[in-house]
């Protein structure tokens, strides 16, 4: 292989834009921003970062020549490009939430680490090689651990970051061990070679061990039961903008990466149902059940969102199963629209936290009187999470469930999982409506009736997320055409 660095740079120019943006943010803040007040530094840092993300989007558009790049290390197919766009949109929304809501010190560092994480997500979307994939995953994960623990004044933030880190470190070790076994079995770290070699050899115990190890890491990244324990603590303890990124963009990139790994890397074994299908079905069923039931018992809004995320992870795992036959469109549509709704919900939480506390469900009381804009946006996001038409959450669920039922009918696990997921959606509707009841019906507690001022940039981000949810829900086919 003769490396062609010009092509490599053309293929990875979006990530380069993000990294350069991150460095610029830090340098400019250290030189020009030293004497400014914190508010101005936040605005400046976010403006540069949004510019970098926008540039990365343009470069993604320009690097549209599909196919394998750099000797097969990167794959620029429709899935990769669509994932890159999704990740950039979600990262931009999380960044736009920052000015006026974040009260942490060191604005430039926070913004720079968000950009590093975004670059990691973006490389994860294109990686076609175990080494690149591992490095991208670690870049993203290490950045997210830092973001979760960024609020040094609150002990909860440090604790959330430590728990996230310990779970993540162990799962990274599992992933690396699984990768080493795949390398040993096939003699290669490139996904297409691995697929070819595995298709040629009989199933061995070593392959089972390798797959189990990869699935453990996947379960952690997706917060699927039984590897979900970090999620509620991190969602509760992390600063709201960091939690928004952890819950949205990280999910989209993680699912694309692992789905690609499972589909092209290890799924192509001679046409029959891949060996990981049943394991994935068990993970999905357990996540659906535990996520939805445990969310019912929550009094804390963020923990409720975390358990609902676990339930959604179950549905996304179903999407990984159906994607073997129907392509990645439905899975990516679901993860992206879920990410939009989650970023929006955490954005609402972040803005309420400016004025006071937003941890328990009761802290939402009287939101309709305190800020109609926030309450209206929250309505859109929560209804989309619940899957009410015409919002995008409904269409994502509809698409995934219909594909799961068509996959094997009721003879395979996917069909039954789809039916269970439909039944549990009714349970989910109950706890989502409880959130909305607090926001719209319950009167505000005495002493917290003051109206909430919504800063401009976060308000625009929320409105954009809500508009996207509505548009994607009304015109889903135009979004799906991007992926196929």
């Amino acid at each position, binding site marked *: 292989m003769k490396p062609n660095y010009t092509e490599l740079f053309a293929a990875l120019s979006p990530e380069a834009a993000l990294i350069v943006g991150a460095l610029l943010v830090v340098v400019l803040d250290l030189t020009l921003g030293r004497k400014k007040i914190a508010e101005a530094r936040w605005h400046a840092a976010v403006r540069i970062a949004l510019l970098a993300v926008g540039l990365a989007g343009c470069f993604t558009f320009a690097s549209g020549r599909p196919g394998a790049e750099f000797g097969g290390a990167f794959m620029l197919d429709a899935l990769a490009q669509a994932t890159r766009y999704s990740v950039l949109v979600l990262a931009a929304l999380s960044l736009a939430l920052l000015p006026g809501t974040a009260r942490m010190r060191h604005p430039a560092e926070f913004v720079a680490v968000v950009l590093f994480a975004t670059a990691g997500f973006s490389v994860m979307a294109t990686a076609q090689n175990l080494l690149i994939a591992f490095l991208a995953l670690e870049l993203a994960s290490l950045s997210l651990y830092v973001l979760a623990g960024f609020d040094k004044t609150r002990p909860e933030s440090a604790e959330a970051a430590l728990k996230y880190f*310990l779970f993540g470190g162990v799962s990274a*070790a599992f992933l690396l061990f699984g990768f080493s076994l795949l390398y040993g079995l096939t003699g290669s770290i490139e996904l297409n070679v691995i697929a070819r070699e595995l298709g040629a050899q009989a199933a061995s115990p070593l392959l089972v061990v390798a797959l189990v190890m990869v699935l453990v890491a996947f379960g952690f990244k997706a917060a699927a039961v039984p590897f979900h324990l970090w999620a*509620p603590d991190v969602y509760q303890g992390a600063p709201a903008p960091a939690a928004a990124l952890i819950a949205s963009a990280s999910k989209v990139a993680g699912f694309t990466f692992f789905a690609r790994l499972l589909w092209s890397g290890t799924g192509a074994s001679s046409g029959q149902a891949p060996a990981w299908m049943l394991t994935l079905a068990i993970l999905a069923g357990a996540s659906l059940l535990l996520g939805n039931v445990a969310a019912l018992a929550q*009094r804390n809004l963020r923990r409720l969102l975390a358990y609902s995320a676990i339930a959604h992870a179950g549905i996304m795992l179903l999407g990984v199963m159906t994607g073997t036959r129907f392509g990645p469109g439905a899975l990516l549509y679901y993860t992206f629209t879920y990410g939009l709704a989650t970023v929006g919900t955490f954005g609402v939480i972040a803005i309420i936290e400016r004025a006071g506390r937003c941890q328990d469900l009761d802290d939402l009381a009287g939101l309709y009187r305190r800020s109609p804009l926030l309450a209206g946006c929250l309505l859109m996001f929560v209804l989309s999470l619940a899957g009410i038409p015409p919002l995008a959450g409904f269409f994502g669920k509809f698409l995934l469930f219909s594909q799961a039922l068509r996959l094997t009918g009721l003879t395979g696990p996917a069909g039954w999982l789809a039916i269970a997921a439909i039944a549990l959606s009714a349970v989910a509707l109950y706890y989502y409506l409880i959130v909305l009841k607090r926001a719209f019906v319950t009167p505000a507690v005495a002493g917290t009736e003051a109206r909430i001022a919504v800063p401009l940039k976060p308000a625009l981000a929320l409105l954009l997320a809500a508009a996207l949810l509505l548009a994607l829900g009304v015109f889903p086919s135009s979004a799906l055409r991007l992926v196929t």
Partner: protein
Amino acid sequence: MSLSSLQLCLLFSSALFCLGLMAALSRSNTILVLLGVELMLNAANVNFIAFWRYGPNPEAATGVVFVLFAIAVAAAEAAVGLALVIAIYRHQKNIRLQEATRLKG
């Protein structure tokens, strides 16, 4: 029964991985948990080296390159981990995991 060198290496790395996992799961001192995670990562590195050395084409050097990157990643991970240990020490004045119980439910 005689074992080949590759099998011996794999046995060693599996043992190392299990030891690391046990340490990560059972220790209450955060730094010892970090050590366990490092052991697990290094077990994977031993695997890569063994598969590279005894594999079909050792001249490609894929395994060695992977290990070099993995060591760098492990170092970065240790840096972040120790920073988080300091952050937690600032708040609870010790690094015992049993006392990190503010978030639960």
